[in-house]
């Protein structure tokens, strides 16, 4: 079965990996964890997605940023 072949390919590849390879995978996993579970979650919210529920609200906000602030001068 093709799916089993693919699974075995990856499984055996990881199993037979050198210590250096395993160390690199550990670095990749730690890095991805820091990026997605810490940085993205706590420090990098998508401002427009989080603060507004609809595109209409977002458009109004951007209008305010691009037009109204310019009117103040």
């Amino acid at each position, binding site marked *: 079965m093709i799916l089993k072949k693919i699974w075995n*390919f*990856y499984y*055996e*590849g990881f199993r037979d990996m050198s210590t*250096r*390879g395993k*160390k*690199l*995978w550990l*670095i*990749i996993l730690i*890095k*991805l964890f*820091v*990026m997605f579970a810490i*940085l*993205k979650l706590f*420090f*990098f*919210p*998508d*401002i*427009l*997605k989080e603060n507004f529920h609809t*595109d209409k609200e*977002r*458009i109004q906000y*951007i*209008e305010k*940023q*691009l*037009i*109204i*602030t*310019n*009117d*103040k*001068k």
Partner: protein
Amino acid sequence: MEHIDWSLVNWSRAQFALTALYHWIFVPLTLGLSFMLAIMETIYYKTGDDKWLKIEKFWLKLFGINFAIGVATGIILEFEFGTNWSNYSWFVGDIFGAPLAIEGIMAFFMESVFIAIMFFGWNKVSKKAHLISTWLVAIGSNLSALWILVANGWMQNPIGMKFNPDTMRNEMVDFWQVLFNPVAVNKFIHTITSAYTFSALFVIAVSAWLIIKGKDKVYAKYSMLLASVFGFLAILATIITGDGSAKQVARYQPMKLAAMEGLYKGTRGAPLIAIGKPSHKKDKDFINAIGDDLAGRNQTDVEIEGLEIPYGLSILAFNDPNAFVPGIKDLVEGNPKEGIPSYKERIASGKIAIEALAAYKKAKKAGNEEEAAKKLKIMEEHFKDFGYGYFYGQDINELIPPVTITFLSFHTMVILGTWFLVFFWLVYRSIMKNNIEKKKWLLILGVLGLPFGFMAQELGWITAEAGRMPWVIQDLMPTMVAVSHIETTGVMITFALFFIVFTALLIAEIKIMTTTIKNGFSN
């Protein structure tokens, strides 16, 4: 725009620059080394010579280390778009999103399938299938770069779109125009060939070090031979596309060219500075004309003193020794004789565009379609100057990029690029004459080629990006408008966090790589 928090703008810029520059430590090696690996494996496939298999496997290990440490570092830039540059992210709409999405899917597909075959498939797939996978990794990673550079090229020369005032977004009207934007095409070739150059320098540096240490000399010399040919062709292409870039900058971003050359006053038959340094000279008339603010700044009062190549800049920019190349002063003050509008005029035009947009919105809300159509027409007529409108009442000096940084980055990059051409030739000749082991000076220069190559890579980006300041999107959106209104302290904290995370990754890469290199080809 009376309350611009410049501290926020500058910290956001610094953070983006930091992450982009760190990301670019890893990318060039992936782009170039992947092709060199494909060539090495092709030689092995064609000749069946085990020497090339050994060579391939050694460089594959180093490729793997770089790839593992560098993978996903670019995602942080996308985080920053959503948090620090939300106004920009909305304004660019799908023009930026579409290429990045294609890049993401392509990278994921390539990385999970073909790289796995490259590393795990040696005795599991046929030689031919392995070779095809290696080529596909090379082609795929380079295509990945294409989409990023298409997005970047659009920011430098925004075409193929139309601004929709109802959604406040730019919408793509011609995908092919965006894809084949001349700036994007040239930028892509210039960037990847410079990455190939860097990879060749990397291979030569490691090989030179091994020869100095008396380890695996034969394998090191074959690697050097391949790298010197690959590097020579790559730097030649980089220089040719660099010339193309200069012509495009002259056409689409004349202020950047003026900053790159430190050209204060434009002239016909403009000379090119071969080697020079910035000095501080002030033109009192100019300062008086645009206001006292300028007197205290360190940008426009810079002039360059150095060795000049007569007519060089006019030829470089327009292929015509008598062509007029505008200087900073011409662009700011305008030059009616040469048909160059002043920044004052462009600011007025941009202000009309912004006011017309506001009036359009108002008329739309009131249900006055006729008035809305009238205002929309005005806005569209002045849209090419849209971004200048935000500088109304601002210090005009903010429209000028940092001249000293741009000049020094550009010229150092050019000097290094020229040296690389000579260097690859010297290495090639020495290998062919079989006397490289005796030329210790060349081997030492080979090792030094790695930091020089890295420097040239980063300086290229600094020239391209610092030189286009203050624009995030050329002439349409400046950094001060693109930035999100968030707490500066938050940006400072994440700046520090990135610095720590990336430095740790870099140390890890250097440490693991050094150990692997020390083991040499035989291990």
